């Protein structure tokens, strides 16, 4: 028996980028492996669900779960890992806030399935079959996980002890989170394991942000050649830095792209999209209705822009009315 703390990694509705982020620790992954005993990690190791079920409850120090919850299978695994682990970590933007998959909450379930299985240009599905929880084929009963009507962040399904933000979490953030968890004095419960201030505060272009920020109109990244030394918001780009938690070291801004908000809000903000919209809406220069409408043409998809990663965790959670 190993005395090292036992941990599990699992993925739900996600792209695999969070798994990649762990592997991206490169040589440092060896430090992780030497510090903990990985008991379950479907993407990398050959343990099965029954191995998890066989563990005593609370056997794992921590379960790192990435991805949002959108099917009965994911919900079941979240409950199972919650039972087996003393600490559950929502790892990455999808587990924390619903992430990109959460944007599906703008559409009813039926439309999501139709778009994915019938209408997408690369799909051939002449008989229009949609996945269903139970079906019969050649006399055999077949079962699939249920596809829920809404995408949920992990903490709407099981209690979550810590959040590791990011799409995907950066090596520094992961390193800090692991160190915190393994330290004799773990961080306060329910905390987001990243700094609690806005990205602007650690932005290398911070000094170029004008004291009174006013912009004639919003522009999209492909419409201008953004200067590399000036605040992107001041150039009219929708940069969510003011409404996003710091900790990523402004990676996107360093690549001359505006922040899209993957680290989520700070602890003082309930709804990242609402806050971002309020802050950015106020910096438009125009005062006449028509001119304002023209200025916001550069934000053709406000929900997808301001809630890129947080729609499922937002106050409304998605469409207010389902068709």
């Amino acid at each position, binding site marked *: 028996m190993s005395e090292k703390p036992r941990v599990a990694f699992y993925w739900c509705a996600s792209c695999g980028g969070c798994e990649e982020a762990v592997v991206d620790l490169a040589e440092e992954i060896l430090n992780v492996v030497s510090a903990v005993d990985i008991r379950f990690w479907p993407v990398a190791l050959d343990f099965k669900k029954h191995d998890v079920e066989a563990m005593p409850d609370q056997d794992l120090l921590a379960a790192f779960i990435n991805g949002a919850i959108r099917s009965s299978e994911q919900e079941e695994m979240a409950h199972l890992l919650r039972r087996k682990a003393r600490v559950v970590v929502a790892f990455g933007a999808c587990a924390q806030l619903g992430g990109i998959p959460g944007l599906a909450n703008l559409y009813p379930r039926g439309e999501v399935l139709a778009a994915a299985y019938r209408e997408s240009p690369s799909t051939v599905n002449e008989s229009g079959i949609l996945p269903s929880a139970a079906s019969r084929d050649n006399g055999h009963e077949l079962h699939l996980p*249920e596809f829920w*009507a809404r995408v949920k962040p992990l903490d709407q399904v099981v209690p979550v002890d810590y959040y590791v933000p990011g799409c995907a979490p950066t090596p520094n953030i992961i390193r800090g989170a692991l160190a915190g968890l393994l330290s004799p004095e773990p961080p306060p419960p329910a905390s987001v394991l990243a700094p609690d201030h806005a990205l602007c505060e650690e932005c290398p272009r911070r000094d170029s942000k004008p004291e009174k920020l006013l912009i004639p109109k919003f522009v999209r990244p492909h419409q201008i050649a953004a200067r590399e030394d000036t605040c992107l918001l001041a150039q009219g780009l929708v940069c969510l830095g003011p409404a996003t938690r710091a900790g990523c070291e402004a990676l996107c801004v360093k690549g001359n792209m505006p922040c899209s908000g993957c680290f989520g809000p700070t602890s003082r903000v309930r709804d990242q999209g609402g806050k971002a919209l309020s802050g950015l809406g*106020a910096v438009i220069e125009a005062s006449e209705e028509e001119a304002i409408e023209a200025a916001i043409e550069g934000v053709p998809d406000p929900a997808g822009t301001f809630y890129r990663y947080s729609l499922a965790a937002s106050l409304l959670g998605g469409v*207010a009315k389902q068709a």
Partner: protein
Amino acid sequence: MPDEKFEPTIVAFFCNWCTYLAADLAGTSRMKYAPNVRVVRLMCSGRVDAQFVLDAFARGADGVLIGGCHPGDCHYQEGNYKTLRRVALLKRLLAQMGIEPERFRLEWISASEADRLKTVVNEMVEQVRALGPLRPKLAQEQVEEAVHT
């Protein structure tokens, strides 16, 4: 289906310097208007964070009304302009969220325009009544009622 007995709830954010005083004037003048508004007094319409509006809808408001000073009359010079810009974006966002435009309204109503307040409130209550309840289905309920739709 509009329900005949349905009484909409309208959450109203009124500026302390104008629309709230108009509501006061309507009261002291014994004017009658629909009792469906729940008024929240703020120092300026510019204080209305989009989160307030979203929260009101999430908690069961059928409509949200913001009342501020006419352009040029803001007690803080430009708070109402900030509101106007935010509201333009918020209207587009709410449309994406499936919330009908009649449910969210921004009006400039000065302290002396009690009549206008009465008209706006009555008009909005009737419009929202005709639309029926919003009843946002929050994530929890949606998953419970789950799938077979």
